[in-house]
């Protein structure tokens, strides 16, 4: 579901390989996020460019995983969102909670400057 395509001392870029993220796979998705954070102990940049459909269950899993990341003094950063998914995130104001970038490389540049 998530493939790590790049790692640096501060961050890892995880490409989300599914096109539909909804209540049928949200628990599994959250478990993968938690496992990646535990194993790598780095900021996770999630490249979501393949994702076409999401629902509230997926967004809930994402927020839950972000809480876990923050508890480890890490972060989950979002990149590559389709316009409609970005608009959905803005609709419920989760853009105030997640750092969002157009591209994963742009996100990695920002994380390196932190």
């Amino acid at each position, binding site marked *: 579901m998530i493939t790590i395509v790049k790692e640096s001392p501060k961050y890892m870029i995880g490409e989300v390989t599914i096109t539909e993220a909804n209540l049928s796979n949200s628990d599994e998705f959250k478990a993968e996020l938690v496992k990646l954070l535990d194993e790598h102990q780095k900021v996770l940049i999630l490249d979501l460019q393949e994702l076409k*459909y999401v629902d509230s269950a997926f967004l809930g899993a994402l*927020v839950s995983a972000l809480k876990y990341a923050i508890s480890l003094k890490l972060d989950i950063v979002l990149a590559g969102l389709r316009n*409609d998914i970005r608009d959905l995130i803005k609709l419920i104001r989760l853009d105030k909670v997640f750092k969002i970038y157009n591209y994963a490389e742009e996100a990695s540049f920002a994380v390196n400057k932190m």
Partner: protein
Amino acid sequence: MQSCACKVEFEFDNTADKLVSSLEYMLGQVKACLPKHANPDDILFRCKVIITELLTNAIKHAGKGNTRFDVEGDGAKLIIYKTDTGMPLYLVNTRNNAVPENNAENKRLISADPLSSLYANWESENHIRFTSEEGSLDDFLSVEQVAEHFGILIITNSSDEFTYTYNKKTRENIFRVRVDF
């Protein structure tokens, strides 16, 4: 204004693997309903998130059997109904009957975090209209405060009116969502 009238019925079997195909089918029907003056990008985005959440709600709560979707459109608005006979919404029978109908006291906060507050407004005993307000980010201290359940909020924020009715006689749960063009 172009006169446009459409009425579509759709049965959903409450299985997650048919969520996306059902969504795409219904969005296709919505697209065919749009009058020329409507902003298709805005309406289709709103309908996409609304229908997605109604389908997700059906999978989670409607139980066995089918959920019926009805889409009705005219030149001014689109109305999406979701009807099932699953368990009633947890808010049913929780209204304070001592308070008269349409009284401000029938507005109750049902969830809140620094980002948003969601309210249930009892318009009669088993008829609820949902509304939301943006929260103040001044109260934002930590991501721990952020809620993790967004389904009703997404529909409320995407629509011009979102109501739930429980029909005691037929035991039907009826969600009604209006999107103005």
